[in-house]
């Protein structure tokens, strides 16, 4: 038992911290700190900086141009990024599709797509959910029918995050109606420029068009865009979900959120004293901080198992539940902390280049939006109820 990082890990941590100090543009970290939206150009700028330093692909194996970081190093990197208010890496190409292509893609697919993910030529989005396939993902009905050298794709995907910026989408499509639902699904890479694709934004309750619907009407996709084998897509999708879950606790986000909450609670006045001195409010902050302290260690226990070569299993379901509940509580407390100034609708003012004047203190503007936006945390990536079912089957064996 040793809670301290090794000398090598400390050196790595120092390297990342000094890189961020030197190379993270203050304009971007300031926007993140203030809860403002980033443009596509902002995100691409940050990816390019990370890529130039070799950090964008840090978690990829060396044979695909990565640094081969282990789980502890990935954790340290993510932790330092959050602490520095760095924009988060857009995960769809890098940590979702990348590992799937590395494990199951053809040599041609790997050679073509992996470098394009790193240098920013492609912006990927994820075509998993459908109107009738949410938690029950195996119920996808979008079809891909083989005709000569092409698949003809028809159907609809939804909740496609940042699909408005993407030029490529990886999709789960139905290629067979025989047997179990899971056995007729394939994993297909589709160019968003192909005729027959239409993207419609969905405005969420915080007022942001973060997600989209994607419609496919007789879309022709070359057969070489099939990943792995036909009807084996469910296996690849599950593999992807495991990778998606390695940073599922979001400890870095929670720490940054807690720090912001305490800062606000020291500035806000309540009965002529700082709000943080209100014993009732202080107790709410203390409870969530205590949960977060324990969760950070739960996260490190899983990270350290993963670094020792054990695949993250159902323990990541526990981290998903606890991590999202803690972050949502921090969001709720932050909304409560700003009092009446939670009420002005500030969506436009938070956009890049907006000249609109904020109402109330600048820290108050994003908090209501963030509170509503982060209700998604306990819904996406397998809702917290799905996670409980996974825990009861895989760990408790009920």
């Amino acid at each position: 038992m040793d809670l301290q990082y090794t000398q090598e890990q400390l050196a790595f941590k120092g390297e990342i911290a000094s890189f961020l100090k030197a190379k993270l543009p203050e304009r971007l970290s300031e926007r993140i700190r203030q809860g403002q939206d980033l443009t596509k150009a902002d995100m691409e700028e940050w990816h390019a900086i990370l890529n130039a330093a070799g950090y964008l692909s840090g978690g990829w194996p060396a044979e695909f141009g990565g640094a081969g970081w282990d789980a502890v190093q990935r954790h340290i990197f993510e932790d330092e990024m959050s602490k520095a208010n760095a924009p988060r890496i857009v995960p769809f190409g890098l940590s979702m599709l990348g590992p799937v292509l590395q494990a199951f893609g053809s040599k041609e697919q790997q050679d073509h797509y992996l470098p394009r993910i790193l240098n920013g030529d492609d912006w990927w989005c994820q075509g998993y959910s459908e109107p009738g396939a949410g938690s029950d993902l195996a119920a996808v009905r979008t079809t891909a029918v083989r005709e000569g050298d092409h698949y003809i794709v028809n159907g609809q995907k939804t909740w496609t995050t940042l699909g408005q910026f993407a030029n490529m989408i990886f999709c789960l499509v139905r290629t067979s109606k025989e047997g179990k639902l899971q056995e007729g699904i394939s994993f297909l890479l589709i160019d968003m420029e192909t005729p027959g694709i239409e993207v419609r934004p969905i405005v969420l309750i915080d007022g942001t068009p973060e997600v989209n619907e994607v419609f496919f009407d007789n879309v022709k996709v070359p057969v070489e865009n099939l990943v792995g084998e036909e009807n084996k897509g469910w296996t690849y999708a599950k593999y992807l979900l495991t990778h998606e879950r390695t940073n599922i606790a979001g400890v870095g986000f929670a720490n940054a959120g807690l720090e912001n909450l305490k800062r606000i609670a020291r500035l806000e006045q309540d009965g002529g004293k700082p709000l943080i001195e209100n014993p009732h409010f202080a107790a709410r902050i203390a409870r969530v901080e205590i949960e977060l302290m324990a969760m950070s260690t739960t996260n490190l226990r899983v990270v350290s198992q993963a670094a020792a070569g054990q695949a993250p299993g159902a323990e990541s379901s526990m981290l998903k539940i606890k991590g999202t509940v803690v972050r949502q509580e921090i969001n709720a407390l932050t909304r409560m902390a700003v009092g009446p100034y939670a009420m002005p609708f500030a969506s436009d003012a938070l956009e890049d280049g907006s000249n609109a004047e904020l109402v109330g203190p600048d820290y108050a503007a994003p908090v209501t939006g963030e509170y509503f936006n982060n209700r998604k945390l306990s819904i996406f990536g397998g809702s917290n109820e799905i996670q409980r079912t996974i825990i009861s089957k895989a760990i408790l064996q009920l």
Partner: protein
Amino acid sequence: MNFDLTDERQMLQDGLRRLLADSYTPAAHKAIEEGDTGFSADIWNSLAEMGVVGALFGEDDGGFAGAGFDLALVFEEMGRVGAVDPLIDTAVLGGGLVAALGDDGQKKLVDEVIGGGAQLAFAHVEPTSRYDLARVDATAAKAGDGYALTGRKAVVVNAPAAEHLLVSARTSGKAADESGISLFLVPAGAAGLRLRSYPLVGGGQAAEVTLDNVPAELVGPEGGAYEAIAAANARAVLAISAEALGLMEVIKDLTIDYLKTRKQFGVPIGKFQVLQHRMSDVALEVEQARSAVINLAGHVDAAPEVRDVHVSATKNLIGTVARLVVEESIQMHGGIGMTNEYELGHLAKRLTMVDHRFGDADHHLERFIALAVA
């Protein structure tokens, strides 16, 4: 960063787990309940022989381990069998305080404790002090070469079996001052010392202690015992938190087994999603409790300002999770969970009482706010 046990600790864990499994039979539990010391002398002796008491002390004090992770390991195992031995009272508190403050002559008592030959109790809590460590009303007055103690001490665990009491009393200052608190050794049977003994919920024995001009021997500096008491208290919080973790683990396992075997409506009740999800939450919170114990084990010997943040964070979380585990496990067991005969009852009572020693969840939330939030 490494969460694996060292080889030495793995050996200690294996040996202790075997010893406790062999010792804590249902018959042994029953005999202890019917006896008048609150524990089994045989089991105590075999624990001492195996070196379990010594594992709670550092080499400087005649032990062989004594780090936070050693305490966590030993007490988690004790919790797993619902053990009632007064290891916290005799070793962590009593032995720990004498080791920290005693002179060479007094420290011989620590060797006796490690060898299994002495029982101690720490008489600190008073009828109105609740969980406030600095609130000491008992007084010590100079009397000849020594001191004479007067006051009342409350729920002094293991006092009925103890050959010596370690008694805190005020030699100067006001009721809640940290300075002015001194520590004294009082042999059982001293003149003016009266014990009213009783059994505790969840096992063990305690006494209400009345001191009326009791002759006593000073341990450590006059008026300067507070920091040693706070340090020993921190280690006791770690010990009881780890014990609580062991209790949670075994209660969790019992409940999962019950969900798999109990049939209603023609199926094991564990097939019902409403129970699966409740059980998943219990399992998840027990993992949080394990992390909280690890956090405190890693910081229990740190500087007081760092140590005390972890003491309060951990004890608050343990108290919160303990209540969830107890109430959910009884509820999911249904009627059988209400019976005194089924083993859940003893474990649930012992786990519930954890919140009543060394500060409950609310007490530590308030401490945490003062130390880390405000």
